[in-house]
Structure formats: C-alpha cells, structure tokens
C-alpha cells in the first residue's frame, strides 16, 4: 500500500517535470513580457518620435507619421474600447471596428498637431519597472527653453504583442482624459456610436 503510493507519487512528479519542461514549446502560450522588453519597446517608440520631431516635415506629414507610430506600437483597439466605456459592450463588432479606426485618426490629429511644440526637443528613456499586471516605462522630455518633464508609458503584452496602452504626463493620463472627452461627445449624440464615429472623422 505504502509502496504503491510512493510509486504513484514518483510517477506523477516525473510526469509533471516533463510537462513543465515542455511548457515553453506549447503552442499558443504567450511568453511573459519582461522589464527589458517593455523598455526596449519604448526605446524604439522614442527613437521614432525623436526622428519625427526633428525631421523638419510639415504638420500634415508629422500627423501621418504619428499615426504610423500608433499603429506600430500602441494597442489602439484596447484604448478605443476602454475610452468608449460601457457602451462598447452593447456595440456590434462592425460598430467597434469603425469606431476604433475613426478614433485612431482623431488621436493622431489631436496629439500629432502638438508635435510642433516638441520640435528640437528630445525624449530619453530613463527607467522601466513592473507595476500591477503590466509595465511602466519612464522617459524624460527635454524641450528647448523649458524645464524637463516626465512622460510615462504603460506597456502590456495582453494583446498578444508588446504594445503601449497609456501615456501619463504630470499625472494626466491619456486614457482617463479621452474617456471624459469621448464620453462628453457620446452624451451630446444621445449615445449614438455611429454618429460619434462619423463626427470623430472630422474631430481632433
């Protein structure tokens, strides 16, 4: 009886060891994002942003450059869904897709236009660390003739890819701010997501 139990335990331990060893090779199992990888992502974003703000290109070109950066490095679908809030749950798949696309253009125009103020400046990544269930990467923005300020990026791999999903400057958080703004726009349109999407194409 006792020897049976021992054998059984030994076998299960061996099986578990084999399973654990095989774990990294299992298909569909997302690898865990590390601080270094989160920081690496923001290093690439910042390098792209720095080259845009010092490219000497026109405002319209900078806006389109900013949109490419968003598409490449940001988790726009989760930002759009989160900013829309509870109404996102009752929206159809098609409604959400067109909203996300319009929202991406709106974000690019609204924030891309402000890139003009960054011309001649530089962003430097200083620190990365794990917070809650994601990563926070801290960078310093040095603008000409202004005191440097901190720009924080939140990075997650929950989309299946390493992406940033939020930006924070002096405590002001992109997602929270846009949720208030998009919420106000939605209220104005009596909760009509299609009307909101149509107007977002011209906003920002």
């Amino acid at each position, binding site marked *: 009886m006792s020897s049976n139990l021992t054998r059984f335990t030994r076998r299960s331990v061996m099986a578990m060891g084999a399973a654990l060893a095989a774990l990294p090779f299992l*298909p569909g199992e997302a690898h865990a994002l590390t601080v270094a990888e989160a920081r690496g992502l923001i290093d690439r974003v910042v390098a792209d942003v720095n080259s845009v703000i010092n490219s000497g290109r026109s405002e319209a070109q900078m806006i389109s450059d900013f949109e490419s950066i968003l598409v490449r490095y940001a988790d726009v*679908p*989760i*930002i*759009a*869904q*989160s900013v829309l809030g509870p109404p996102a*749950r009752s929206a*159809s*798949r098609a409604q*959400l*897709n067109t909203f*996300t696309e319009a929202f991406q253009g709106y974000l690019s125009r*609204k924030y891309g236009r*402000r890139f003009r*103020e960054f011309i001649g400046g530089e962003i430097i990544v200083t620190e990365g660390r794990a*917070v*809650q*269930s*994601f990563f*926070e990467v801290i960078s310093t923005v040095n603008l000409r*003739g202004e005191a440097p300020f901190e720009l924080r990026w*939140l990075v*997650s791999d*929950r*989309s*299946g890819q390493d992406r940033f*999903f*939020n930006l924070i400057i*002096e*405590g*002001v*958080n992109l*997602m*929270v*701010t846009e949720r*208030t*703004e998009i*919420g*106000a*726009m939605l*209220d*104005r349109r009596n909760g009509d997501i299609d009307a909101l999407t149509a107007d977002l194409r011209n*906003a*920002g």
Partner: protein
Amino acid sequence: MTAATDDPLPRSHASFRRFLLCAPLLVMLAACGPATLPPGDAITDPSEAQNRAVHRGNVALDRALIGPTADAYGRAIPDPVRTGISNVAANLGEPSNVLNNLLQLRLGQAVENTLRFAVNSTIGLAGLLDPASAIGLPEQDTNFGETMHVWGVPEGAYTYLPVVGPSTSRDTVGLIVDIATNPVRIFLPAPESSYATGAGILSRINDRHEFDNTIDSIYDDSADSYAQLRSLYIQNRRFQLRGDDEVDYFDPYGDLPTGVAADPLNDPYFDPYEDPYVQ
C-alpha cells in the same frame, strides 16, 4: 502672578510660544496621515450647473481680456524679462511655502525652501534669477490646500472659481488661508507689497501666454471644455499631492476575457478577416 513676570520667553517671542503650543497638535494632525486620493478623475460636482455658468464667464473673460493681454505681454516683453518677473513672483511665494512646510511637518522641505529663498534673494538678485535650482534646490511649490491634505482633510467637491478657475472645496479654503497668512503680504511695507502683487499677476499672465496652445485647444476643440478642464485639473492636482506614492492605474485588460473561450464579440482584437485555418 502674571504671565509677563513668570514668562521665560520675552514678549516679542509670544508668537513663537504660540507656535510651540500648537506643535503637539500638529504632530497629532500629521499622525492622522494624508487623505486618500481617488484614482482617475472622478469627483463629486454637486454645483455643476452653477460651476458651468462661472466657467462660461471665465472663458468669455479670457477671450475678451486675459487672452489678448497675455498675447500682447508675450509679444512686447522679451522672454528673459518675463521669466525674471515670474522668478521674482515665485521667490516671493517661498516664505508661504516654508510656512506650509512647517505645518506639514516636512522639515527637510522647509529647510530647502528657506535656503532657496536666501540664495535667490541675494545671489539671484532679489529673485530675478533662480541660481538655487542650478545648485540642486529645485522649486517645491506648496499651499495650504496641500497642508490640509497632509492633515487628512479630503478634497471635497469640485468647485469652479471666478477668474481663478478649477479648485476643490478644500483647496478653495486653502487659497483664502494662503492669501490671509502670506508673510510677504503681511510684512512687506506699502509700495513693495503692491509690486509683489503686480509680479504675481504678471506671472499668471505669462503662464497664460506660455500655455496658449494648450488652453486654446481645451476651450476651442474640446466637446465639453468644462468636463475636460475638470478632468485635467483633478488628475494633475492628485498627482501633485501624491508625491512619490504609488498610483493605482486603471487596467483596461482587467475585465478582458482570456483564453479560448473568449467571446469574439467582446474581443477587441477579433479580426473578421483572419484565416481560421492558419495555425
């Protein structure tokens, strides 16, 4: 027996003695710990209708007077002069900062701000320059609103003040206390104290000029500039009060379904064009 004969401290130290009497009270207040700071930008706004009316008045005042004045000031006066005037105004705010640092029992900051005031008032040519920042004593602005926060007083409701703009019920009380107790206003003689007020107003006008693009984009482009300004103010104010404390970020992935059973209609990454046979 009278207080005067028995008193170990001379009469001139009466106010200091009063401060010493308050000290245990301060320790008790500080021991209560700071008020909790809610995450995000949610705040009660019970006087919203009235606040919105004041906001409309402030926007009108900005369009008619403050905006154009700031524009003219920014164009007429060279940047170094404007910065110098703003530095003077900031330097004259240091005694009030030190007073609040003492009430907050942040004695290190009280010492740093005292040194800042000493360095900038002398080597910094009466505050025109800011050499203190260059030698590792950066500006650490505070106010009585923060002092009350340190004592555990919650922010209260959102309030919107004429001319001044966004505030909370606690910070409105703080603003009044700061004006009433400002050592510079109390101790500076007649003509100089009005120069101090003048520098303070010019500093605000310079801020309006420096942040022109941001302010215009809120007033002109926002769907609801009142709600947007409230959100920005509350987020930034809580950030100032939080200091180095950890912030509780909203996790947008928190309520996201995970695994194979995720509902494609609720999955923000669902791609309707995806090839289902690709492995």
